[in-house]
């Protein structure tokens, strides 16, 4: 388990790479060859992460006694019978292998597992700082969740590094670009293995600043710097919540240690409800800013001003999921704070669901391909938050995992398109690219299908789990979330189809001759596309695998990644797989595709296309024959959903939310000016200066006493003597 205990090496490598590139890159390596350093470092990171992941699975499979928690009976008053059962199970057969767990879940225990509760590997390296007797260890915290993210970050970062060698080739600040990619990777890795909440904050801020730098990479143009500023400032707003929330946690538990906080909550779930609610709400604000949740999501589309690989890495796959990751990491806090176990709607679930909805709606209204993807990311992040909000921890992490791959692929695909189409992202200047860019087209379609949640692509599995989680919930279902989820499923499929239509089909509307990107770009695309296909395999439900005799591989993410050592105490349950739900989800996605397909293909009268397209042909025929459906689409769906709602949503987004962010900035500046002018210079400084002027002018006034005439002086002398005498003799 050496890698788990020495996980600090993983972020250290890109950190060194950052220093090497930034300070020695130009002189010793050559500004245009620094990617060698970055890629080497990332390869190492990837290898080490893989080793770590492997070792973690070993730890779960064959736990050493000290890796297993001897769990006590947690509070019976919590009243969760599932939890009680698990507790008993563990008491009896904690050494049991995972087979029993599968058996359990099959046995109708609501998907609960009874594999042993594996401790995270916590390595504390030194006393980082201590203040007033409070010690802060700097250390690593490695468990399944960590290694999951390690793999995601390492993989995508590596691919982005490779992809970028072509994409940003010849850029003036090639060196800085790679340096900050490295720094970002280091920060992100540091963040995911944070041992305490201070480290979480540190990592959180560092990824934010890397994001700022990379969004503003082309800082010569003002829109880019505006976007960078907006991203950073919006995140800062959320950081208020982060700071306050973390402080509340610290104040409540008197520790920064994540393990300790989680354990304290999970062993005594009922306590500190109010504090946890406050903390959870504050942290929610942080999540909203970092993970683009309503209403702080507006920075994310703007952040597309950065180079596309950066968008893929930071604003799709990794940094923006930091919020989700943090919720998952401190899940007991949110679970107890928002009473996820007992409620049927809560702040987190609502924000997530609502975000998913508006994100999807907004994606319709965009012409910029990256913006579509950005809103899609917003929407999917909302999905994840919603999943966490309904108690579907594993589903959220699973979706995070799959989403990272297909969304990165989509972004890189968009980058590839733009690379080919003269650096434009406007879909109106694309079209018909499928012939010129076959690889890009194919990977894009695969990823889109994954995103849309079409069987058997990765997105299907993870989305299904979320919908299922919403349906079942914990003690109660989350019906509203389910409705949101379903709507989003449909919309997602629809807007992705639209993108594909505009980008790859029809006539080319741009300038010049588009061409396929070189291999160095398409290979990463294919790798990601491959992941988009197979990533779902990591958490397949048992029933699916049973027929092929691989039930032992079911729920791998749940088994390995879920921090059951904490969640168990909360009584978190897992829903049983449901075929019905899966079919409903699939149907929604398909109908989304079909409707859109019909809308674009048919309306344009491009019948030829339908001939060649298998899916479209089927759907088209159905719709062709049943005209009312088209009518339904045109008059009802389009007119009511797309035009008014999406437009309204877009207007609202641009005019209210986005303006609110901008005006918040402007208002602050105006207030600042006002305060400065009237309060500072006017009142405070004014009074100081007035006092000075007063002294000056009274000095001038008093000078008139000094008339120069000696008899006036005499009058004053004798007069003062008389007055003093009167005062002292008569009055006193």
């Amino acid at each position, binding site marked *: 388990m050496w890698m788990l205990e020495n996980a600090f090496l993983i972020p250290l490598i890109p950190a060194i790479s950052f220093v090497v590139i930034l300070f020695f890159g130009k002189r010793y390596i050559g500004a245009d060859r620094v990617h060698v350093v970055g890629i080497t470092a990332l390869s190492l990171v990837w290898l080490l992460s893989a080793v770590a992941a492997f070792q973690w699975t070993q730890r779960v499979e064959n736990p050493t006694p000290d890796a297993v928690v001897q769990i006590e009976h947690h509070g019976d008053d919590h009243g969760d019978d599932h939890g009680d059962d698990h507790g008993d199970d563990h008491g009896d057969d904690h050494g049991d292998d995972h087979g029993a767990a599968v058996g359990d879940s099959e046995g109708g225990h609501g998907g609960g597992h009874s594999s042993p509760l594996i401790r995270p590997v916590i390595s504390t390296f030194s*006393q*980082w*700082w*201590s*203040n*007033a*007797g*409070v010690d802060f260890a700097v250390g690593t915290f490695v468990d399944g969740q960590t290694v999951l993210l390690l793999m995601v970050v390492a993989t995508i970062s590596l691919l982005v590094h490779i992809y970028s060698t072509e994409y940003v080739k010849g850029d003036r600040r090639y060196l800085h670009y790679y340096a900050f990619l490295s720094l970002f990777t280091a920060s992100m890795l540091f963040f995911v293995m944070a041992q305490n909440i*201070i480290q979480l*904050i*540190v990592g959180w*801020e*560092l990824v934010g*600043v890397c994001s*700022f730098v990379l969004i*503003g990479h082309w*800082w*010569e*143009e*003002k829109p880019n*710097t*505006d976007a*960078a*500023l907006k991203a*950073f*400032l919006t995140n*800062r*707003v959320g*950081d*208020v919540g982060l*700071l*306050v929330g973390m*402080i*509340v946690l*610290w*104040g409540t538990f008197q520790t920064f240690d994540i393990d300790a906080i989680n354990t304290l909550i999970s062993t005594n779930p009922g306590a500190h409800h109010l504090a946890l609610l406050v903390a959870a709400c504050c942290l929610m604000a942080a999540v909203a800013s970092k993970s683009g949740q309503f209403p702080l999501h507006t920075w994310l589309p703007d952040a597309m001003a950065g180079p596309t690989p950066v968008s893929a890495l930071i604003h799709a796959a990794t940094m923006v999921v930091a919020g989700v990751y943090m919720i998952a990491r401190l899940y007991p806090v949110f679970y107890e704070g928002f009473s996820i176990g007992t409620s049927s709607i809560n702040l987190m679930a609502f924000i997530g669901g609502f975000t998913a909805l508006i994100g999807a709606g907004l994606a319709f209204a965009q012409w910029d391909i990256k913006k579509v993807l950005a809103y899609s990311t917003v929407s999917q992040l909302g999905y994840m938050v919603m999943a966490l909000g309904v108690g579907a921890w594993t589903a959220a992490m699973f979706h995070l995992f799959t989403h990272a791959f297909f969304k990165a692929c989509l972004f890189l695909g968009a980058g590839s398109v733009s690379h080919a189409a003269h650096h434009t992202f406007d879909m109106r200047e694309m079209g018909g690219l499928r012939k010129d860019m076959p690889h890009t087209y194919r990977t894009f379609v695969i990823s889109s299908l994954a995103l849309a949640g079409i069987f058997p692509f990765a997105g299907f599995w993870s989305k299904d789990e979320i919908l299922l989680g919403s349906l079942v919930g914990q003690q109660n279902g989350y019906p509203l979330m389910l409705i949101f989820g379903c709507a989003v499923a449909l919309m997602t499929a629809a807007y992705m189809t639209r993108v594909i239509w505009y980008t790859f089909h029809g006539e080319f509307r741009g300038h010049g001759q588009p061409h396929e990107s070189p291999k160095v770009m398409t290979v990463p695309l294919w790798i990601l596309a491959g992941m988009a296909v197979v990533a779902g395999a990591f958490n397949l439900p048992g029933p699916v695998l049973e027929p092929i005799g691989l039930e032992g591989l079911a729920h791998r993410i749940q088994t390995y990644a879920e921090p059951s050592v904490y969640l168990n105490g909360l009584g978190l349950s897992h829903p049983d797989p449901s075929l019905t739900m899966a079919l409903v989800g699939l149907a929604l996605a398909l109908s989304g595709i079909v409707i859109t397909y019909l809308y674009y293909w048919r309306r344009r009268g491009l019948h030829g296309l339908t001939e060649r397209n298998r899916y479209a042909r089927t759907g088209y025929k159905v719709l062709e024959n049943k005209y009312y459906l088209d009518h339904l689409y045109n008059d009802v769906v389009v007119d009511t959903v797309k035009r008014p709602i999406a437009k309204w949503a877009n207007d609202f987004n641009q005019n209210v939310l986005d303006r609110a962010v901008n005006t918040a*900035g402007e208002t*602050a*500046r105006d*207030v*600042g*000016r*006002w*305060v*400065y*002018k009237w*309060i*500072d210079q006017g009142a*405070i*400084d004014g009074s*100081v200066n007035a006092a*000075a002027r007063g002294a000056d002018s009274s000095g001038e006034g008093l000078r008139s006493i000094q008339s120069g005439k000696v008899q006036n002086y005499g009058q004053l002398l004798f007069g003062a003597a008389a007055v003093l005498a009167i005062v002292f003799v008569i009055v006193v």
Partner: protein
Amino acid sequence: MEVTGFDTWVLSLAVFLPLVGALVIMLIPKAYEMELKLVALGSSLMALVVGAYIAVQFDYGAAGELQFVVDKGWIDVINSRYIVGLDGLSLPLLLLSLVVVPLCLIYSWNHIPDPGNPKAFFVLLLILSTGMNGSFVAQDMILFFVFFEVVLLPMYFLIGVWGGEDRRYASLKFFLYTLFGSALMIISFLALFFLSKDASGELLQTFDMRVLTDVAGVGIIKSTQVWIFAGLFMGFGIKVPMFPFHTWLPDAHTQAPTVGSVILAAVLLKLGTYGFIRIAIPFLPEGAIAWAPWIGLLAVIGIIYGALGCLAQKDMKRLIAFSSVAHMGFVMLGIATLTDFGINAAVFGMIAHGLITGMLFFVAGSIKERYHTLEISRLGGLLKAAPRMGWILGFASMASLGLPGLAGFWGEFPAILAAYNPGAGMPEETFRTYMVIAAIGTVLAAGYLLWLYQRTAFGEPTEEFAGHEIADVNRDEWIAWTPFLIGIVLFGIWPNLIFNVTDDVVSGITATVEAIAAGS
């Protein structure tokens, strides 16, 4: 601890070597410019070497106790003695002061601002240095007062002679404000002298800060403590500066020559906060407890207000100056919590602010030298014109807005954290409100700094300077700035370098305060 041999001299050497240098320079004719500069640099570097020796010899295990103590007769008639000593609270600040001055000298080596006259300029810097060093090691109130005041005149002249357009107004304002504060401060010192009693009720009649720390104001009734504290508050609060006594600061900073601003920000402002920690709180715990919520209030007002002030600025230096108001607000908030945690954070904040804002002023000065203006709207594209300087500005801005991993964060975050759990006897809800407001202040800080950065560094250079060749960071600047940059990173990565040293002293102080709060 018995101090013997060379160690009895080291503190005095560190304090007075620059003064000796100044006296020597005064004897050298103006024409020997190189010699003048060498003597100046040499004496300040010698002081720094002594400082390094102190840092090495310092017994970190006993950081809570005064070390290298020298206690000699000075003004017998008023029972004031020449007592200097160094503990964990003084050490970082002394070193900061010792480091900043030679760097400023180096920076000014070929950049003596108009109207020139390096001799006078260097002499004043060295006298300033003596005053600052002395303030941090003095352990007698009168001695402290003298050193505290010694810095005034040199700074007055630095601003007044080598300053900008409005220098007369600014320098006078700086001076009058501070003078008023210190007059009230000396009244309070005397009140402490006359009213302090030891545990047995005997009048002490001493200025010895060690003794007064020990007795912790037990003989002084609370209402009196409150009044005396008020005097100290004015004295130190103006220096910090706390809202609403801050208006001298933007003017002074804006008009001061670069190194003047740097020293003002890096060291002088710290005298105020140091005074709170060293004198006001330990000597008058009950007064401090009564005042703390109000100090906290002014601190958070300062945070927000300073930030708003920044947003309104059109001049880069003035903006940085206003940011000092905000940052010192965090420091004061930490102090106002009266907790070990908060005060440690405050000390850290002092050092961090010194390095970061000092750095920002350096950059501003260099920009001014190149562009001859600091009007934000006329600048732009610094990253393009002088990329290294642009990066340094960005780095310092990031540090200033409290980016974790850099020094600024460790002053800001723990201070906010400390407000969650203020010391015994403090209104918890009030401080938690302060906490939230302070946290909001961090957003504004990011706002104004990035706004500044966007408008100065990003984009293309404005038309006005489009064709101009703007020199990038030169050698002198590198030498002067590198230690600042290293310090910002080093303390950011390894905050314990400071927390470890200060904690013993601060915990001693807060333990007393807590005991008194519990007793009353």
